[in-house]
């Protein structure tokens, strides 16, 4: 779907002052978040919409109406979490056969490094019999609700480009992220929160702000990072000494002055600015309310392992549920903590401990609230890790794993994803994919398909070209669709 025409028509309709007064009146409190953007004439048609976040229908009936993406940045070791390779035990400590690594390049290790078997036990779980490492005991309990994809592959083998690729479909910075494409396509159901919210635990991400950027799409579709401490949204609190009542009085006066000027100049952009201020005022209440985990029951907090006031992945999972409940379209959690070049065993154990319970709780919680049906949950990093060991005494690295774009594992749940399946397989050493390869472009095509889009038709014209999330490739993975 290309919204240029639609948005332009809408813009032309609403851009006149009379329309503004007629449709919306001056009781601006009633106007939704939807009115938050209408950048003057920049880019002419698209930005000048009065209402770019109005909920919109996709190309066909969607299976998922919203997305929670648990981005495991740094690239978790699939070999220690999901992709069990008993053969590796046999070859543990021996050099990898030359024919397996022929022509492969690695970021840090020499291609002839020794193979390295996982130290963890794996067992089959649930009716589906999905094989999962002992460090994910909570996920093990919900395996029948998720689909494991053991045959993911990507093009990039350094963190920043790979994260950008996973999030935007291009290794080059400057393209819109998945969340931006989604809100561009669907708008948002939320009346007083941004349509695309970003939460982060652990470190900052390699890809930085580009991971949730809007690229050439209007800024309103960009992810808004909610902060862990202080105001969740930048500049949300009034300056010291300014009460909410004073803020209201100030905004009332500001509105009157702006309306007065609108009447004199006739520039409809002023009407949009008035709406922006009103929306900002509402955000000042809705965002702190959202962040207040104290409203949750003790059972819920225990289920996630969340503690109000503490910054954690668990809190973010719970916040994600609260955000989608309030109509936010796309919530993306970044947990940048999986880059285990050394001591992968200890590292994976710690990070599994920090994330497993809450990830599984999110599935259960969404399920019990009837939200899982149409909420797509995605878990995964930017690439995988090598079956070979990374060791370099000179720089203090031992028993780690290097970057491995050839094969890695992700999981998805809800929102039209087939339950309790494991898709794809790698060879005996976990090196290459041998079955049902799923490329990043295919993943994107699948996500858009679940959201109701033909991925080849959700486009935006820029620099003379129709851009899309999947670039010029990608096929939806039908085996994943329920």
């Amino acid at each position, binding site marked *: 779907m290309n919204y240029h025409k639609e948005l332009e028509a809408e813009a032309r309709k609403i851009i006149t002052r009379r329309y503004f007064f007629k449709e919306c009146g001056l009781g601006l409190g009633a106007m939704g978040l939807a009115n938050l953007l209408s950048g003057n004439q920049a880019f002419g048609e698209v930005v000048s919409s009065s209402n770019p976040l109005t909920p919109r229908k996709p190309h066909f009936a969607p299976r998922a109406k919203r997305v929670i993406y648990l981005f495991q940045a740094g690239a978790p070791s699939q070999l220690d979490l999901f992709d069990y390779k008993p053969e590796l035990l046999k070859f543990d400590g021996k050099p990898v056969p030359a024919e397996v690594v022929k022509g492969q390049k690695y970021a840090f290790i020499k291609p002839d490094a020794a193979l390295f078997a996982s130290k963890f036990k794996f067992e089959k779980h649930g009716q589906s019999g999905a094989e999962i490492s002992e460090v994910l005991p909570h996920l093990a309990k919900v395996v029948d609700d998720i689909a494991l994809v053991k045959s993911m592959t990507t093009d990039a083998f350094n*963190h920043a480009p790979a994260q950008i690729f996973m999030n935007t479909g291009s290794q080059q910075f400057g393209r819109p992220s998945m969340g931006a494409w989604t809100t561009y396509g669907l708008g948002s159901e939320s009346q007083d929160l941004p349509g695309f919210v970003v939460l982060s635990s652990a470190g900052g991400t390699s890809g*930085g702000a580009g991971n949730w950027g809007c690229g050439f799409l209007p800024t309103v579709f960009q992810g808004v990072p909610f902060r862990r401490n202080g105001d969740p949204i930048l*500049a949300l609190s009034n300056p010291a*000494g300014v009460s909410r009542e004073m803020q209201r009085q100030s905004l009332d006066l500001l509105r009157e002055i*702006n309306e007065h000027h609108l009447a004199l100049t006739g520039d409809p952009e002023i009407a949009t600015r008035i709406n922006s201020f009103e929306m900002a005022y509402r955000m000042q209440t809705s965002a702190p309310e959202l962040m207040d985990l104290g409203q949750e029951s003790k059972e819920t907090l225990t289920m996630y392992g969340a503690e109000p006031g503490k910054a954690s992945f668990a809190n973010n999972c719970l916040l994600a549920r609260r955000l989608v409940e309030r109509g936010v379209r796309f919530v993306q959690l970044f947990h940048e903590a999986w880059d285990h070049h050394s001591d992968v065993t200890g590292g994976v154990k710690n990070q599994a401990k920090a994330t497993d319970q809450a990830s599984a709780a999110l599935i259960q919680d969404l399920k019990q609230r009837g939200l899982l049906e149409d909420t797509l949950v995605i878990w995964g990093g930017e690439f995988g890790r090598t079956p070979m060991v990374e060791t370099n005494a000179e720089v203090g690295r031992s028993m780690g794993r290097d970057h491995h774009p050839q094969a890695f594992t992700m999981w998805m749940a809800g929102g039209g994803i087939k339950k309790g399946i494991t898709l794809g397989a790698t060879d005996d050493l976990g090196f290459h994919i041998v079955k049902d390869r799923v490329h990043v472009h295919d993943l994107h095509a699948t996500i858009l398909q679940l959201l109701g889009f033909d991925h080849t038709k959700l486009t935006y014209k820029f620099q003379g070209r129709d851009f899309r999330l999947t670039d010029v490739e990608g096929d939806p993975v039908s085996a994943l669709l329920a």
Partner: protein
Amino acid sequence: MITHFRWLTVLFLLTSATTSLVGQSSKSVTSATPSAVDFVKDIQPIFAERCYKCHGPTKQKSDLRWDFKESGLRGGKSGAAIQPGKASSSLLIQLVSGEGELVMPNDGTRLSPAQVALLKAWIDQGAKWPDGLDPKGIDPREHWAFKRAAVPAIPKVKDSKWVKNPIDNFILARLEKEHLAPSPSAKKRTLLRRASLDLTGLPPTRSEIEAFLSDDKSDAFNRVVERLLASPHYGEKWGRQWLDVARYADSNGFEKDATRSIWPYRDWVIAAFNKDLPYDQFLVEQIAGDLLPNPTLEQKVATGYLRNSMLNEEGGVEPEQFRVEGLIDRMDALGKGVLGLTLNCAQCHNHKYDPISQKEYYQFLAFLNNDNEPIIEVPTLTQKSKRSQILNDIRALEDELLMKHPELTEKMEGWVKTNQSTKGNWIVLDPQTWFGANGVKFEKLEDHSLLATGDRSGETAYSMTAPVSLQSVTGFRVELLTDGTLPFGGPGRSANGNVVLTEFKVSVVAGSDGKTNDLVLTNATADFSQKDFPVAKAIDGDVKTGWGLDAGPGQNQDRHAVFQPVGEVSAGEGTLMTFNLIQKFGNQNVIGRYRISVTADSKPEADPLPAKIRRIVDLSPRDWSEDEKRTVFSFYRTTLHEFEDTNKKCADLLKEWPVGTPSLVLAAKPTGRTTHLFKRGDFRKPGDVVEANVPAFLPPLEGNSPRNRLTLAKWIASPVNPTTARVMVNRVWQSYFGNGIVMTSEDFGTQGERPTHPELLDWLATSFVQHDWKLKDLHRLITQSATYQQDSIVTKEIEETDPYNRLLAHGPRFRVSAEEIRDIALASSGLLSQKIGGPSVYPPIPDGVLSLGYGAPMKWETSVGEDRYRRGMYTFWKRSVPYPSLSIFDAPNADQSCARRLRSNTPLQALTTLNDLVFVEAAQALALRIFKEGGKDDPERLSYGFELCAGRKPDATESAKLLEFLQKQKDYFEDRTASAVKVSVADPTKIPEDVNLHKVAAWAMVSRILLNMDETITKE
């Protein structure tokens, strides 16, 4: 997407599928020769039916199309397909007749013998192809923007009284055609604020307003424009816009996103605008300043334009991949920002819409592929004179020494002779394998040295294995070498080119099982060791200590150390040795380039002469230049302890040597690189070698000009280039009116928007070139037009017919840029620093923002003093964590070139101007200013404050409302001292004594309103 093989290759690949058909008709080709062949009747239908599919409107395989006369007669990648008059030697006939292995068409069905005969006859009869048969409006080469602009006729208009200069003729002619009337002139206040924002990005001061209002002369406004053009802030305003195009940032981008120092380039841009450097020269210096004859330092700094590309220093990267990505980014920047072409659409395949083939893309890229990417040191003017002073002082001291001791000249000759034998006999080893821990990668150079690239941030260890054919080894020499790619030349990779080698280890690989014997090393010597970092520390077994090279500012040069093994080391044919260079000092103090040599000399020691002295000493003293002689003497005297006094004086002088600012520049490599086409744009899939050239649809390069960046730069900045001037004047127009005449200012190609006023665009472009590409003349022209000076009030009629004001029936009205929103708040409140240029600054940033960046959050030491209140354009720009209050107002991220900004209008923006610390401080300062300077009573004060923000006085309604609000606030704060303090002052420890804070607090609330008014952040 068209996959790009050579034409013949495609044919070859397809041959196997069509072999069954080959030969079938080879005999029948000789059938009856038709008489006079008619192209339209006989030939064109064959082309249309059988050839257009691959060589026509949608595809042009092998760059060949049969629907255009020019292309058909010229041929494609395999050369001419037709030799008029000689059918038998025409490639076309060879292919369609199946005489060779390759056959066309390649879809499995051959041309009929009759068709082949027609083609043969047509060619034999001279291949007559009548003119005028080319499809109309399809050939992208005919696109308007690809033809050089001619000076258009100035249209006649009915309302000629309205016209002030030719711009108005073009605008009014169109309005009259649409039955629209232009708007009346804007009020003087509006016009002044508009021009001030347009030319300097700052609102007018009260005295400037007063001066203009009281100036009744007819040229009053013109003199305002002259004043603004002469303001140093003009360069800031227009420089900032160029920096969007130049994707300027203060960090490298990607994961590490390390700080880079390239602000000298930013300052060069500001200065270039201020001195009105002609735009053609402006471009030439940025693209190839280093290649100009005797380039100045400034001209070298200008090439920072190309260096503004992002750089991935993430651990474990393949440096070549990101070097290539940098080139692609430069192509994109030149395309979007300078040529108005979407060049990058041809990176993976032929451009789908514009006539740029993939080959042409890489031919263009070949101009940019021959450079080193150094960081040079840029001294300021003061530093430069200080340096000459130091050199003169040293020279004077040396002269004095020579005067007092004339015998020194002769003595030095003796010293030189003795030292001609101290260098020893060294065999440079040829590295066989090498590896860098922590993701460091190497390039092996011709002199067998290894040049480090990739990550430089962490501790590392370099290992290198090489065959050693000497029978017996008595010493190892490590040379740490300078290189154009290293900071300040190296030899290290730290910011000043330093390095610390913490341990050096050698082991002999014994036998085929790969076992190694570690050697014990002793007697370390070096030509130089940094204080507290003696070379012996490199073999003391302690990785916390090492050999350092820092000899002080300006002393970057090749260095070497020699180590002797303990006991006899026998080697010889088949012996491999591994060398480990451990570097744990951190802070990027790692080796940039090194090589290792061995010797069999007895008890070898390091040549006491540094390499740069050795090079001169090895020449015959008779051949020395005066400079060389002096260089040698300067070194020689340091070896003479009896002149300790002079030596110390000289050394002390050198300690004062001022270190300039590093800046990223380009510098041509002595020998260029070979450029390949990358299949599907993938650097791992090099295809054919290409030669540097410009796309064929644009004017060719001049005759024999060398295929280098300078030639490219001159070609780009030439009046014959059809887009260069148009693109720039269009972007200038965009800045004034909100939209370009071509709205897609980055794309003048066939997919770009058509110009709303094509003749005006051409008139502006040609007049720009006629005025020697002087931008200030263009500004005069635009600001003096009636079009520009119109009121910006939007009437109902215009709203409905031209909602985006493309026809300009009224003046521009739109929100100012992100930086200007900050600048206006600071200027109105009196906080703004007027300082131009210098290092980027760190205004307050909200807590937690920097932790969104990778790794340990960057240290953001909030600037103090006036640097806290600099213009927005000087804010340190970190790509992975852009400064929020600028980013929120659509400042581009600088990940790539940006030719036009979005202008959004969001609640996050409202929160920023209401609550962000910078704006809160501005409101407080404005309140204090109003209170102190604003006049005798509240109405006067209000009027004063309003004018500071909006450039006009409030009307009665506004006054009444604001004063009523003020009274309410006064009442509120009257008995709330604590709140009043919080609202009125940023720092409660610095409460001004001389004012009533209760009242200032009330004014701070009013000021907050004033700064948030739509009008304050809008150019009207």
